[in-house]
């Protein structure tokens, strides 16, 4: 499992990421991929803004009475023969899952995509306890072969290029069948993974999935997927375990509909994902397939503490990934640099809450506050506002550097004296403009080394904004 230590190394990790050619090649595809597809989907759907409002309202209403909805979910799930387990911490959740598996002699567990399993470090824990874990989502499968962690919440292997995937398949797949795999196009690789995993779905004794949401009124868990691996995972084995955090519950199916209208459009730019599947309890007496047992592990891991705080809006997140797809920082350094399960803007907002601001203090600083994340967030989470909140916490706890604190104190002193501030900035702009010469750029500048080390600083126009504004009127 990734711990807080990796998040604390963001500066070094991001510098390395900028020099990683494979990563940079993979990240360059974000524009024509995820971004363009979302833009098209939103343009096709005239009522998108209304749908966002409805989704935000549904989730906001839910969180206000989260306790009741959780109790209703539990009661309905039980009525259908399901079992609900409550876990406060990652340790609790891991133990519950392991006990379910060992009590039934499970040796092979197939898995659909779940970020909560990453959050609790489930794979390593189960493997250490003798259980074979088979990731079945193609992206998750690729990074399992590479012994890596996801770098994106819906496209876990987005940092891998096709040649890297070819190498992984060559190393790990049966050499005797190698001749039958072409490995020339992405389609060849998809077909190869399908062929290799087909039997594994049938071999598994248990299947574990996450949940995009839980529906209280029916006691159902819902997965929204495209590959169909999640459906095979939860249908074929005799035991289905759902791993979900407590903020995933919504009161009604209609609330689920409100979320579905924005989820796929924001995530992959589809109007609907290929499969939206509601699972309610184990197989019925007359059913001929489906799991004999259905268990839901409800994990808190810090969510309940966020209710009623200035950052509770992060609990609205539906994990679509739009914020990272559109973030210039994520686009430059990728997901691994963030050092914990949730990368990009949502990670920068959520990680300090879950790991503590000391371990994760760099993440909310890894933003120019450009606001694109908030603009595309279907749940209208005010991510930049949350980054500022964490920066204030960092400052209040004196976790930032002495230099930063001195700089902020000086600037604060000056900014609180408007006449002096205007005089000072007016002089500075004139001087800098003259110093810049014909190139209108600085290759280096006193006190601005942090900027000019990696790029030129454009010269100011010669006067401040306030001055130009005055002259204009």
């Amino acid at each position, binding site marked *: 499992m990734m711990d807080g230590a990796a998040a604390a190394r963001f500066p070094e990790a991001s510098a390395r990421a900028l020099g990683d050619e494979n990563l940079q090649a993979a990240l360059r*595809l974000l524009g024509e*991929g995820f971004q363009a597809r979302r833009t098209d989907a939103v343009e096709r759907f005239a009522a998108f803004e209304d749908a966002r409002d409805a989704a935000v309202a549904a989730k906001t209403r839910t969180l206000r009475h989260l*306790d009741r909805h959780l109790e209703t979910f539990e009661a309905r799930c039980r009525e259908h023969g399901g079992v609900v387990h409550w876990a406060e911490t990652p340790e609790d959740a891991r133990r519950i899952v392991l006990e379910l598996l060992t009590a039934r002699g499970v040796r092979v567990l197939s898995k659909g995509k779940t970020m909560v399993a990453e959050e609790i470090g489930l794979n390593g824990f189960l493997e250490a306890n003798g259980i074979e874990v088979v990731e079945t989502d193609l992206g998750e499968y690729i990074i399992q072969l590479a012994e890596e962690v996801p770098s994106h919440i819906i496209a876990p292997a987005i940092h891998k290029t096709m040649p890297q995937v070819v190498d992984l398949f060559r190393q790990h797949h049966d050499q005797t069948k190698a001749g039958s795999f072409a490995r020339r196009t992405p389609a060849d690789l998809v077909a190869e993974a399908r062929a290799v995993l087909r039997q594994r779905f049938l071999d598994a004794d248990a299947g574990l999935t996450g949940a995009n949401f839980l529906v209280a009124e029916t006691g159902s868990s819902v997965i929204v997927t495209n590959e169909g691996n999640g459906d095979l995972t939860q249908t074929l084995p005799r035991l289905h375990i759902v791993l979900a955090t407590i903020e995933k519950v919504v009161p009604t*199916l209609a609330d689920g509909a409100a979320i579905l209208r924005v989820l796929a459009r924001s995530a992959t730019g*589809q109007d609907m994902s290929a*499969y939206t599947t509601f699972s309610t309890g184990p197989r019925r007496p007359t059913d001929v397939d489906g799991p004999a047992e259905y268990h839901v592990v409800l994990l808190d891991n810090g969510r309940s503490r966020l209710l009623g705080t200035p950052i509770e809006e992060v609990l609205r997140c539906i994990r679509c990934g739009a914020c990272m797809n559109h973030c210039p920082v994520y686009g430059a350094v990728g997901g691994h640099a963030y050092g914990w399960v949730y990368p990009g803007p949502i990670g920068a907002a959520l990680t300090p809450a879950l790991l503590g601001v000391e371990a994760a203090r760099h993440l909310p600083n890894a933003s120019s506050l450009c606001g694109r994340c908030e603009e595309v967030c279907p749940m209208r989470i005010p991510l930049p506002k949350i980054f500022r909140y964490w920066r204030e916490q960092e400052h209040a706890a004196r976790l930032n550097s002495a230099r930063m604190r001195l700089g902020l104190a000086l600037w604060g002193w000056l900014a609180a004296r408007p006449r002096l501030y205007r005089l000072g900035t007016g002089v500075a702009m004139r001087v800098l403009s003259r110093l810049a010469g014909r190139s209108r750029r600085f290759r280096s500048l006193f006190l601005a080394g942090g900027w000019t080390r990696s790029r030129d600083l454009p010269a100011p126009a010669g006067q401040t904004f306030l001055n130009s504004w005055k002259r204009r009127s």
Partner: protein
Amino acid sequence: MSGARERILGRVRERLGSALEEPAPSREPRQTGSGDVGEFCRRLQAAGASVDRIAEDAVPQAVARYLAERNLAARVKVSPALANLGWAAEPLLETAFGVAELADAAAVMPAALGISETGSLVHASSGDNPTTNHFLPDHAIAVVAEEAVCADLEAAFSAASGPAMPRTVCLITGPSRTGDIEQRIELGAHGPRSLHVLVTARTPDRAPSSAT
């Protein structure tokens, strides 16, 4: 673990601090009733499915024709719910009824509903309609009646959940796909490589006289 349950719910209540306030009712389902079949078909096709609009008594012929056009073996696993569609009319089509297995290349299954808002089929599991049949074989052929196409998600949910939710309700919108390799969309990841939808209309001689 009942201790954990009480502690989690206790923390939630403490943080919310407003357990007295009644929850506002959720938005009423829109239930706009029947959907636009043309729109339903267009959206399904946009999601990568193929669509054939046929008479309700022509399913075996349409299945045989589809398999032949695709150069697939004339052999299908049929969900038992569709056992009475007159399969004997296609003697060259080999049919078996029950739960699909790895060896089945194609399967035919019913969809309880269609949704024109999204171009989705609603597959509801039951003893004679196993979920496996849609996901395991390479080619899925789904049968849905025109009059079962409803307008939107809310209408479909209230119809599908009925008195009790089936074990599995799956909204299916196109064949299986993935974008996990360099963000390129490929069909046929783990679920069906192709989805063919037979949208059936009532046969005139059996329909009520008003339906034209």
